[in-house]
């Protein structure tokens, strides 16, 4: 029997190695897999390369992972935000490497990896700093730059509902990078609001088929949007001792 569901966040993020490339879904905080990121902080993997559209907001989630100095390099399109002070400080101190990618090129590089495409030509970034030094080709009279597929060892994403085969549906615009990251990573780990019985998801509405998913963990909906202070019990950890500790 296929059962991709796991009972705790600790099991969900088990085995993520130091030096791994980890894709993290979300656009700002919409669709950010906040519980999985907290679990990754607790798990302790370091020297990570993180792929996300942004570089963390406030002091929680991805920003907390950065603040814990677990990230060697971030690949993103828009690190600078009103509340990106953690990244800003690390970048100014030269303590984090940044690979800046136009957002559509980032999405397409991720999509390409999931589809087995090694690289592609695009006119985006031609004549700019972000296209400088890249192989170019004239296609139909227009200059294009060569962009390589972007794959990952792990993807951490958030969806709304899943079944035990790992079929996923998302909620509103929180879908964003989830489906393409799920396909681009060797091991895709998903936090969901609800796990439903096999057959309960409308097959016409499944967005990410389970073939792309390795592990699914349910995060009860009462999870607050901002992480609790370190060490404080959190409802999504389950009964004492049953879940992963944040501290």
């Amino acid at each position, binding site marked *: 029997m296929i059962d991709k569901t796991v009972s705790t966040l600790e099991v969900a993020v088990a085995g993520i190695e130091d030096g791994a490339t980890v894709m993290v879904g979300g*656009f*700002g*905080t*919409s*669709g950010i897999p906040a519980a999985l990121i907290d679990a990754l902080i607790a798990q302790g993997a370091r020297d990570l390369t993180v792929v996300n*559209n942004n570089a963390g907001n406030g002091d929680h989630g991805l920003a907390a992972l950065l603040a814990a100095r677990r990230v060697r390099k971030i690949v993103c*399109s*828009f*690190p*600078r*935000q009103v509340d990106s002070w953690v*990244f*800003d400080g690390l*970048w*100014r101190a030269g303590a984090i490497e*940044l690979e*800046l*990618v*136009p*957002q*559509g*090129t980032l*999405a*397409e590089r*991720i*999509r390409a990896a999931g589809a087995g495409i090694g690289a592609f030509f*695009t*006119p*985006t*970034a*031609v*004549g*700019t*700093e*972000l296209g400088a030094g890249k192989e170019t080709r004239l296609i139909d009279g227009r200059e294009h730059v060569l962009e390589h597929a972007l794959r990952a060892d792990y993807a951490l994403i958030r969806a709304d509902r899943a079944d035990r085969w790992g079929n996923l549906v*998302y*909620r*509103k*615009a*929180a*879908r*964003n*990078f*989830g*489906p*393409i990251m799920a396909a681009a990573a060797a091991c895709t780990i998903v936090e969901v609001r609800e796990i439903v019985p096999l057959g309960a998801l409308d097959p016409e509405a499944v*967005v990410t088929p389970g073939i792309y998913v390795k592990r699914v963990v349910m995060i009860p909906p009462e999870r607050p*949007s901002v992480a609790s202070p370190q060490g404080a019990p959190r409802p999504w950890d389950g009964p004492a001792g049953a879940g992963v500790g944040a501290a």
Partner: protein
Amino acid sequence: MTVKRYSRDEMAAKVARDIAEGAYVNLGIGLPTLVANHLPRDREIVLHSENGILGMGPAPAAGHEDMDLINAGKQAVTLLAGGAYFHHADSFAMMRGGHIDVCVLGAFQVSVAGDLANWHTGAPDAIPAVGGAMDLATGAKRVYVMMEHLTKGGESKIVASLTYPPTALACVDRIYTDLAVLDVTPQGLRVRERAEGVSFDELERLTGVALKES
């Protein structure tokens, strides 16, 4: 004669007036978001948001925000009847594949050739962030820029050649400023409209590049 500069809302209304019934439109962060408030009610115009929304509606009433439904500026929005959600690669395929009819962007500078600079000042201590700017400028069928005509220091933001890092080359079709509306043409910049009290000669002097009268 006193110059009557276009207000930000007047600029937005001029952009909105130029967007046709049935158009699929992406409004950039900042000044361009004002355009949404001025779209004619008798036209169906579909707003695209880069994070995977077509049919984006206005901000919800206070207390009804849903942070799974936000715009590119990460502010809560709504979905209109007929709207749809899709993933990021699809969303950018709409831009990069030439399916977006009009995008409206802010800018630091636009050159006579329609080169656009709007993503990075190039200052050594500035954290670079590009987002979807290059994809939009490169892929949309028509690129409209909204910006103040002059910098705070009085220098023209319309230039012979960019001094800021480019976003995309030869991409801008029309420029809406507080002083004028100009088309980028192979023959140079053509003035469509001037603010009250600004003569053609004065506009050309302030802009610092040769202009053509409409």
